[in-house]
């Protein structure tokens, strides 16, 4: 199968040298210092440090900086169409570029949801004029996410839908999901699943446990997620279908995916930075801006299980579930606030700060998982091997910054780590062969 085609704005192909940069691409097996030469938007050469001739290229002193294969986020809410007050293609992809991403997948739970070929075509056209990273669009599995009938999956695929998801809602009916998995044999397209049993979740707003008991908030039990994963993995196994489980939050869920993978089911899954860094203890703040999302923050044991899953490969990738919301949707009591937090601009820095620096996760492993979300959707993974298209995240691993101190590229500010001090910063991003992000820097020139 040929790699899926994602869309972005056409622009000037990059021509530059990252001089003395540390190149780390675990998949290509590169971990050494080079002059990384980009010509006409492609990686032309990994020369020895200081060896590449300038040759009219922009020269960037990258000594002390790291070049990683740019990241891929399979779970972003761009809010187009219908909720452009939260985010749009331009602001959302700018946020992605600022986070070192070169590609993202946009969820279909917009207003109205993306359920027709015309929706996909118009979104792709919009991305070609406004997106500063490559964007792929998912279509809904069921018409208008009503959970009643399948969308025209084959037509949607022909229009360019990368895959399918009713994200935001589970597919309640096992029969309907089974039909979609059968139909997948005709049209392809991974089905991404928001796993939650609505009967068990009820009106829950946070993890069910000691903290919810103390706060008097209705809980969402871990088994709400894990039982649906077990059900859907069994269906995928039975039909030979291909599913991707979104935003794992509970240890039981990691175990359910592990069992399914061992049984040979075509199943992949993702975990989000906020679930890897925070627990339900944070909800004691009752801060809806930073700590209200679905699935909810769970316990330390769950967080450890997610980290272990990421380490042993049960969890394929990091996905931000970037979910922008307007201030008025969050400046309300916790139970009334909209679910979701933004995460594109902080994903790498937060995980680097909380997991890599304390020695919990190896840097190479994090870099690998940060673009691991491409494969489940047949998207080509970024690579720093010579000849590849230039998709590069240039990072300063020692830079410290405070999240939100200079605002956000995103239109929304409901970052789960707003105000936190992070170590590690994306200073430049190349996506699709173009320079799409440069950290604004301020330096005093020497008086002449």
């Amino acid at each position, binding site marked *: 199968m040929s790699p899926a085609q994602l869309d972005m704005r056409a622009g000037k192909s990059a021509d530059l040298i990252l001089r003395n940069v540390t190149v780390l691409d675990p998949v290509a097996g590169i971990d050494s210092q080079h002059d990384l030469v980009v010509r006409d938007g492609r990686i032309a050469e990994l020369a020895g440090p200081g060896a590449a001739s300038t040759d009219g290229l922009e020269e960037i002193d990258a000594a002390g900086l790291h070049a990683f294969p740019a990241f891929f986020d399979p779970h972003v809410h761009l809010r187009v169409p219908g909720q452009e007050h939260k985010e749009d293609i331009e602001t959302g992809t700018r946020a992605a570029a600022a986070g070192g991403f070169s590609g993202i997948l946009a969820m279909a739970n917009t207003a109205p949801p993306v359920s027709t070929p015309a929706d996909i075509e118009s979104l792709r056209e919009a991305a070609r004029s406004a997106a500063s990273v490559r964007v792929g669009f998912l279509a809904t599995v069921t018409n208008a996410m009503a959970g009643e009938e399948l969308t025209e999956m084959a037509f949607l695929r022909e229009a360019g839908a990368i895959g399918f998801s009713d994200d935001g809602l589970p597919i309640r009916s096992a029969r309907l999901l089974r039909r979609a998995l059968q139909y997948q044999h005709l049209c392809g397209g991974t089905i991404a699943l928001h796993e939650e049993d609505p009967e068990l979740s009820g009106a829950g707003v946070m993890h*069910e*446990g*000691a*903290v*919810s*008991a*103390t*706060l*008097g*908030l209705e*809980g969402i*039990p871990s088994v709400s997620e894990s039982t649906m994963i077990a059900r859907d993995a069994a269906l995928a196994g039975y039909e030979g279908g291909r599913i991707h489980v979104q935003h794992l939050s509970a240890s039981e869920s990691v175990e359910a995916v592990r069992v399914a993978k061992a049984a040979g089911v075509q199943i992949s899954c993702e975990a989000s930075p906020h679930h890897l860094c925070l627990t339900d203890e944070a909800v004691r703040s*009752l801060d*809806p801006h930073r700590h209200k999302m679905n699935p909810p923050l769970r316990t330390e044991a769950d967080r450890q299980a997610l980290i272990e899953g990421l380490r042993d490969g049960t969890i394929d990738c990091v996905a931000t579930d970037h979910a922008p919301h307007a201030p*008025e949707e969050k*400046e*309300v*009591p*916790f*139970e*009334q606030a909209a679910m979701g937090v933004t995460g594109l601009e902080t994903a790498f820095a937060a995980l680097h700060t909380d997991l890599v620096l304390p020695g919990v996760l190896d840097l190479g492993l994090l870099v690998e998982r940060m673009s691991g979300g491409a494969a489940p959707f047949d998207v080509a993974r970024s690579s720093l091997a010579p000849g590849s298209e230039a998709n590069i995240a240039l990072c300063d691993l020692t830079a410290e910054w405070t999240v939100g101190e200079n605002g956000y590229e995103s239109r929304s500010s409901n970052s789960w780590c707003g105000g936190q001090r992070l170590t590690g910063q994306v200073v430049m991003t190349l996506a699709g062969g173009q320079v799409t992000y440069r950290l604004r820097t301020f330096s005093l020139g020497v008086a002449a």
Partner: protein
Amino acid sequence: MRHLLSIGDLSKAEIEAILDRAESFAEVGRRNIKKVPTLRGRTVVTLFYESSTRTSSSFELAAKRLSADLVSVKAAGSSVDKGESLKDTVATLSAYEPAAIVIRHPHAGAAQLVAGWADAAVVNAGDGKHEHPSQALLDVYTLRRRLGALKDKRIWIVGDVLHSRVARSNLIAFKAMGAKLTVCGPPALIPRGLEELGCEVEYSLDQLGEADVVYALRLQRERMQESFIPSIREYATHFQIDSRRLGRRQLLMHPGPVNRGVELSGEVIDSPQSLISEQVASGLVVRMAILYELLAAGDETPVPATGDGAGQPTPIGQPA
């Protein structure tokens, strides 16, 4: 004390200081003129998004007894009906420069949000199923008058703990005062993980005899529709506190309003062990003490204690 948002924000000493203050207001309540000028010229806003008899009336009367100007807003019939957000409502009321805002809201954390938006001292008069700190204070006050210290007393909280903000605040307050705690009710109405608040959990009343105090909670009749319990009849059979179950030396409390014949039988409500009316009376003086503590403590000039010396509460000013 800047705000009263959670009972957990108060130390044992701070709780006792408020209760001591309430004792002195009880003395004011025995005068012919039950009013003191402490808060003259200051404004107290009560903002109630949920129905209430006891809490709203006692906070309002407490403010009046302290000579504050009172603005009383009920969500029903206000701009809230027109869709005004909590934040905008608070901004509007803040234009009157209130010294205190007393808020009840159906959702957890509302009082805390208001405290972030307003300059006024904020009193949480109940936020969702989260907390009801003034209730906890008045319950500790009521028990302290009866029992002296709460240390090592065994208190059973019985009923719908899951949906009860009173249970949460009281567990914290009773524990701070050194009591030993048991919660009891049908399993679906005991929140998972509650033991971590430092209480025992029982699913039957078999061991109720060990309790010094039985604190019954209101059971909302609609809980049956949501399958938390199979029927009111079965609930009452297993969990109703009646004269058969309540021993002579055990004290009975309930935050009100009572469902007669459900969580309590009629005869125990009116029994000598029942503290329910005392709880209501305590509500007034404790809420006076809360407003005083937030708005006037520190302003006062110490007045020599009348009567028998140490441990005596600070006297309050002369009648207005």
